[in-house]
């Protein structure tokens, strides 16, 4: 009996200390990790889809509360005016979540472009969603009010060959982005108005 108690106590204490330590390390590194991700993963995707903007979208960003989530929005300035916002959404892919950076034009509410950020899809098949420019270009000009689908599901997006699930994940993420944009539209335009020029 005493041995049992000792086992339970030791394991509990060890787990508790380990949990506390990990929470402390996570808190200490959280901001740095977010920065690194912004610069090395999200940054290139944002700059690629907001091509031609005159500001640094990674520096000009704001956060909005969406229900319980806090989302980051990156501003793209064109012709001296903040015309597009980019933000990240996720869709369920073949090997886990597919992260999609979506830019929306705030004057006509249409998609400016999309770019895959993080994914764990099959190399050579689903992973092409990140590298194939033809696939991503199809989303340009899509509406934020209707669902975006692959042609198999009655939509207008040609799926990547051999990677229907990944293509569906990207479409789902883009559709989700449209809904988020519609939901937060008023807040976004208010934020953009208050932007120091």
């Amino acid at each position, binding site marked *: 009996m005493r*041995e049992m108690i000792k086992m339970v106590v030791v394991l509990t204490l060890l787990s508790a200390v380990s949990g506390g*330590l990990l929470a402390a390390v996570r808190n200490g*590194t959280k901001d740095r990790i977010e920065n690194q991700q912004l610069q090395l993963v999200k940054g290139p995707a944002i700059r690629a889809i907001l091509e031609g903007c005159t500001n640094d979208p990674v520096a000009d960003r704001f956060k909005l509360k969406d229900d319980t989530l806090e989302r980051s929005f990156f501003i793209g300035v064109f012709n001296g005016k903040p015309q597009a916002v980019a933000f990240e959404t996720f869709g369920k892919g073949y090997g886990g979540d597919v992260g999609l950076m979506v830019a929306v034009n705030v004057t006509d509410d249409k998609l400016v472009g999309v770019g895959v950020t993080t994914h764990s899809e099959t190399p050579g098949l689903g992973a092409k969603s990140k590298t194939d420019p033809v696939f991503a270009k199809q989303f340009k000009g899509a509406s934020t009010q209707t669902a975006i689908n692959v042609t198999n599901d009655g939509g207008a997006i040609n799926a990547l060959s051999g990677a229907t699930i990944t293509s569906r994940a990207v479409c789902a993420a883009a559709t989700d982005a449209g809904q988020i944009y519609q939901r937060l539209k008023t807040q976004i335009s208010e934020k953009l108005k208050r932007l120091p020029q």
Partner: protein
Amino acid sequence: MAKSIVQEFTKGLWNEIPPFRLVLGLCPVLGVTTTMENGLGMGMATTFVLCCSNILVSALRSVIPAKVRIACFIIIIATFVTVVELLMQAFAYKLFLKLGVFIPLIVVNCIVLGRAEAFASKNNMILSLADGLGIGIGFTLSLGIVGAVREILGTGTFFGNTLFGASFHPFAFMVQAPGAFVCLGLLLCFMNMVGNK
């Protein structure tokens, strides 16, 4: 005492060098050694985990009940691996992107658990640290060597610098998985030839 510390340290560098003499921990040896940089990075992460877990297991060896020792070791090891993962994301994000899934897999690296069970749980902290450092550095060197051979033959570069002129055709086989086995086998053969003399 001083002599045995040196002994425990140096045995990891030759007599018990993990991938070659013990033929342990082959998963990272085969998986991440496409370049020397990756190999060394992975080796250093493993060394850090190995030293920390060896010290802690040794310090707690009289407290940990024998029946749940493996569970305790795994908690300790997993904690340090997660710490390494977070630190690497914060300070070496590019390396983290390349090593990816292999970092969490250090938890089940049999070298780390093996040293905790076979050495640290029976010896004092100083000897355990010497053992961890020795084995860890031996492991790092092995990964570095395998990585260097594969990088030089497979891509014609060394630490990212191009070595040969344009007439060099990279031996692409070496950077693929089968090349890793062949490279490891040849190095093992070489080690045995030298060692048996």
